[in-house]
């Protein structure tokens, strides 16, 4: 029996029935990794002995008892490495668990492997990893998206049942779309960031990759909630997200923002999204046209705010307390300058420099302060939109997965890959990408469903209704 294609819910049934033991799940998953990860390169580290030990000790009566979960290498797990795919964190061992990891453990999950990513989550292709590119399971010459490309490829390639990722500007939704799996970014403040190595603090949010919407709802129930260790997490009850599913979309109003259907969008992507919209119409939803007038500024705002925050967040990587230190430093400045020059990759350096610049004396008002104000306007756009509808339907990415190396020389073109996902982070609202078809050469296309702040229930309900009526999530890549 090949169990790697099963969902978490199917595994739980088998575990409960005594037809499967947690140890067998880990073993079969390990076999699958051995078989395909030399092609995909989704994982950075595996500690199979530890995962097996956790499986042996698992309490299967817990909500995730005995279920292996992969974790993006940007979230601290006590006793494990956490490199953020950066050379600067080579050798670092985390002395503490992130809050989401504590919650997963408390729910009985088995931690399984650390997934590849763009260095410090900066990128849209996973090409910025210091440890090599992750490949798209549907076409090994193409990128899996990013920055959580390893998590997306692992789940889509059935090397993981589910994986944690992080989404700062689309880093969960975009790779989910490009690899054909479910990728959920919760409302800002819904999930604790404690233990997540910060890229851009006001935008980062931990979320999940799964094969199906129901699994995403289940995982969110477990990792969400207020955390006294994260001052930006919000004290608000966690709904039973799984209970919101299965109610259909009849009576719901779904908005289609006209600014998200622009010239330059891949025609096959546009066609798949239009087809999805028709499906919702067919199911009884009311489709309304919406305007989000400040959409065009989102990428610019993002690259000011995210880089400004990252320039400070990454200042701590200096070779003093942990991680890499340059050899034989002459003095403290030499140590800083060389440690950081040798430890960070090009994209990280680029963003640190841009962020340092927009905060520097004389430029703060023109860039950072103005960007914050435009960010408010973007948030206001969504607030007004959600007065007219319950959720928004958009493409997740303007194009399917591009070829490895295709955009590396032109950072600006790369930045524009996130054009449909970034505004959701700026507004602090929630979004999910689900499979909604394939191009003629079998590259996945994702549908993005956007909900208002704390609107995860409706958003998941909408996603689930589409998934139940379409076959896309059942397709398996030809590995």
């Amino acid at each position, binding site marked *: 029996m090949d169990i790697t294609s099963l969902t978490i819910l199917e595994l739980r049934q088998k575990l409960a029935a005594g037809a499967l033991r947690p140890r067998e799940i880990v073993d079969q998953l390990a076999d699958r990794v051995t078989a395909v990860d030399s092609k995909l390169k989704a994982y950075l580290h595996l500690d199979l002995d530890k995962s097996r030990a956790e499986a042996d000790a698992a309490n299967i009566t817990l909500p995730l008892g005995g279920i292996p979960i992969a974790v993006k290498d940007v979230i*601290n797990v006590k006793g494990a490495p956490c490199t953020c795919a950066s050379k600067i964190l080579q050798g670092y061992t985390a002395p503490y668990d992130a809050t989401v990891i504590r919650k997963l453990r408390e729910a009985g999950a088995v931690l399984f492997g650390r997934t590849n990513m763009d260095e410090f989550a900066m990128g849209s292709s996973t090409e910025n990893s210091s440890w090599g590119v992750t490949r798209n399971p549907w076409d090994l010459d193409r990128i899996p998206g990013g920055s959580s490309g390893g998590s997306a490829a692992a789940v889509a390639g059935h090397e993981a049942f589910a994986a944690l990722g992080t989404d700062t500007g689309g880093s969960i939704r975009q790779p989910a779309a490009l690899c054909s799996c479910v990728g959920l970014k919760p409302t800002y403040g819904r999930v604790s960031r404690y233990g997540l*190595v910060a890229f851009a603090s006001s935008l980062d949010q931990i979320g999940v990759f799964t094969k199906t919407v129901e699994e995403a709802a289940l995982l969110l129930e477990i990792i969400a909630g207020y955390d006294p260790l994260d*001052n*930006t997490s919000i004290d608000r009850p966690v709904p039973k997200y799984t209970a919101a599913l299965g109610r259909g979309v009849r009576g719901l109003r779904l908005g289609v923002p006209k600014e998200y259907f622009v010239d330059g969008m891949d025609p096959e992507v546009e066609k798949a999204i239009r087809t999805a919209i028709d499906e919702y119409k067919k199911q009884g939803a009311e489709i309304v046209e919406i305007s989000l007038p400040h959409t065009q500024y989102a990428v610019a705002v993002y690259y000011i705010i995210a880089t400004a925050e990252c320039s400070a967040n990454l*200042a701590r990587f200096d070779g003093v*307390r942990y991680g890499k230190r340059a050899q034989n430093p002459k003095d403290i400045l030499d140590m800083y300058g060389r440690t950081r020059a040798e430890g960070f990759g090009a994209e990280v350096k680029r963003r640190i420099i841009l962020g340092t610049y927009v905060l520097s004396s004389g430029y703060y008002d023109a860039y950072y302060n103005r960007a914050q104000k435009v960010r408010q306007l973007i948030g206001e756009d969504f607030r007004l939109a959600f007065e007219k509808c319950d959720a928004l339907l958009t493409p997740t990415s303007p194009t399917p997965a591009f070829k490895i190396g295709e955009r590396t020389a032109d950072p600006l073109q790369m930045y524009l890959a996130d054009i449909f996902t970034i505004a959701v982070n700026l507004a602090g609202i929630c979004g999910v990408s689900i499979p909604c078809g394939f191009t003629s050469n079998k590259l996945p296309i994702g549908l993005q469903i956007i909900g208002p702040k704390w609107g995860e229930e409706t958003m998941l309900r909408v996603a689930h209704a589409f998934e139940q009526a379409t076959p896309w999530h059942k397709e398996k890549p030809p590995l």
Partner: protein
Amino acid sequence: MTDFFKNNLNMMAIAPLPATDYEAVIGLEVHVQLKTNTKMFCSCLNEFGGATNSHTCPVCLGLPGVLPVPNEEAIVKTVLTGEMLGCQIATRCKFDRKNYFYPDMPKNYQISQYDEPLCLGGAVTLDLLAYPKDVQKNESTVIDKPVRLVRIHLEEDVAKSFHFDDGTSGIDFNRAGTPLMEIVSEADMSTPEEAFAYLSALKQILIYGGVSDADMEKGQMRCDVNVSIRPKGQKEFGTKCELKNLNSISGVRRALKYEIARQIDVITSGGSIEQQTRRWDDDKGETTLMRTKEKAHDYRYFPDPDIQPVRTDHGLYDQAIKEMPELPKAKKARLVQQFGVTTYQAGVLASDAALADYFEKAAAPKPANGSAVANFLLNDFLATTTGDETLPKVAPEFFAELAELAGSGQINSKQAKEVFAQMIATGKSPAALVKELGLAQVSDVGALEAFCDQAIAANPKSVADFKAGKQNAVNALKGQVMKLSKGTANPQLVGEILIKKLSA
């Protein structure tokens, strides 16, 4: 002020005036460690000392992935400080990141407050007793001068570094992340003595509020001094120098005295002041150049996205008000009223919260003895004590007992002084000492009558003088009785017995 303007000021200052025609302009930036249980943004113990790096956690080590959560008590204590100093308390404040690289700073940014500090304005009043003792009587001492504050904000302290001979430094992060209040004054002071008084008065208030122990020697209060000189009457400031390494309040006074003289000397000998950071060497008694004005820091302040803005009007302000202590001025008035001490005594007592507390404990059993207790405390103890002791090592109850022994006539004032000295020296109780030294005043009428008869018999001249109307003659007889009793007789009773006998 722009650099351009400063540079031109320098050039304008070429015509030197006599040294006495200059005045100093002094402003202080004081950093105060708050007395909280835990650090500013994590739950590590906030404690001076401790084994190196034993009070650290992922947060205060700045490990990847950690987040700061502000300490409520630190905010309350800062609001309380602002309230005691008459500041405007912000209803909303936020924390900002101040970016610069330094190995003692775990994140390479300091969480501080930039444009929305907790407290704005306010003042420290330089009362007489805050000045150095040797200038308290000078006419030029400006009493009750208010030194205005610019602001008070809250931030985190940095780690401690140790420098080794092999060209390395070692860092202990125990202090990293402990709560630090920065109190910035206006440049309202013009003499080293005023700076001294400012720090003394500020320290007094901080101790009053239980906000900090504010001991400069222990680094609990640290200050940077900005000083410039200008011709008297000129409005514009001269180029300032910043003084560092000031480890005591009197050190600040000495450093300023030196530095002002140095600057005047530079100007009067035709030079100009260069903007510098200078280091005070207390042993040599001089300031030396640390660095000249480097390229301006670019701290790239921006709001810390990890920390929500704080609303003081949501309970924090009310909590601070609850912790508001009785302030020196009110305490002074109450001590006069409640214990009958003089205004001066009350002032000295109230200038030191711990001393005032001690006094109140000693005077509480019998408020009528307050003045006597104050005398023992201020004249016998404080005036004679040497070194750093500011409080007697004995229990306040001993002062109460001593005052009662003296006040009720059980010992006389001379004996009381002896008992006091022994009490301080040995730590024994006054009652025990009176017994041990055989000092109990004789009030037994029978015994005293015998001494009186002896004295009358031996001094017929005094007896005759008294009978002739010289009332004072009785004093001579009284002296005799005291001598006969080796000082143990109750003088008041002796007087009464003598008069009775002589008038009979």
